[in-house]
């Protein structure tokens, strides 16, 4: 196996730091260029007015998936060494619901708020301030929260495990679903809310 370099010991901490900064640079550049530094554009996704966020997300997911699994099948990337968040249904469902509510209200998620804040958008800076307060609220309530939500850790589960399909078949299905979703989304863009109120 050739990759991931860091986990196989081919690069050291300096390489890790440089990789991270370079990736962050392009990440930030793309967020701003695609309009993800604009809370109006982000929130518009929840009104079906502008699917920009979904288009960026899904084409990124599909691109990464194709590249990752092809290098896995070519035998150059050890996929078991690539980061995978553990499944914790309660935490991710409730966390996702709270996060989604916050995104719809605030118009940003953390990455886009940083990009917009760097572009001197006042609402993004206020959002980040609120974010800090939210972190504090989470930290002081962590004892109670962990009792309720952090208990059913299911480990590193992939969709292939859930549907009992091979990585290849599963990623093909995801790509097809994504393409279907794109076609559907383009048809109904701007038609969800007929008139602005």
């Amino acid at each position: 196996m050739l990759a991931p370099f860091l986990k196989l010991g081919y690069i050291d901490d300096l390489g890790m730091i440089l990789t991270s900064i370079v990736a962050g640079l392009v990440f930030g550049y793309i967020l701003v260029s695609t309009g993800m530094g604009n809370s109006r554009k982000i929130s518009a996704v929840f009104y079906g007015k502008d699917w920009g966020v979904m288009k960026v997300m899904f084409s990124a997911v599909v691109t990464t998936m194709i590249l990752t699994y092809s290098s896995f099948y070519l035998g150059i990337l050890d996929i078991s060494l690539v980061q995978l968040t553990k499944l914790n249904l309660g935490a991710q469902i409730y966390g996702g619901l709270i996060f989604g509510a916050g995104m719809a209200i605030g118009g940003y998620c953390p990455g886009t708020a940083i990009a917009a804040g760097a572009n001197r958008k006042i609402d993004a800076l206020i959002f980040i301030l609120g974010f800090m307060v939210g972190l504090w609220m989470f930290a002081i309530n962590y004892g109670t929260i962990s009792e309720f939500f952090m208990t059913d850790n299911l480990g590193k589960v992939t969709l292939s495990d859930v549907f009992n399909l091979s990585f290849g078949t599963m990623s093909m299905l995801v790509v097809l679903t994504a393409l279907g979703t794109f076609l559907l989304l383009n048809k109904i863009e701007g038609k969800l809310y007929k008139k602005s109120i």
Partner: protein
Amino acid sequence: MINAQKHEKAYINPYLGGIGLGMVLFFTFFVAGKGLGASGALTRMFTFTLNLMSPTYVAGHDYLYKYVSSSNHVLYHWLTFMLVGVVIGSLVAGFRQKRMKVEMLKGPGTTKNRRIMTAFAGGILVAFGARLAGGCTSGLALTGAATLGAAGWVFFLSVFTAGLAVAYIIRREWL
């Protein structure tokens, strides 16, 4: 469609941007075995600042203490370096594409005061949700979805479901 403002350069094609973002994510998988992320770095910066002000307070909270008690400095982390990159990348794009105007972005039917409240409240909820779920749109949804992680897909669907419902309730703020 929400287009860029008149004084700005037009936004690039979202599919093209997405493909670029996907290539960056693959690059980090391939080189480091790690993905993109944003909320982790903010959490570390928050803990770092709090620890400067009152180390005893941080030591009294399990969740915060685990960040400062590791052998590496709380800011010495993959995601904090990435944050530096994101800020610089956003600045470069912002200047090149004339998006650096100081302004408060808000829906056409709302006031500045109400926008301050929605931005602040949204930030609180997003932080709480991200810490509960163990990541945000980039670290959990994007990175997780690309590796077919069930956690990422569950999170993504929950975010979108709540987003659609809550957006309807507060539509006066954005439409």
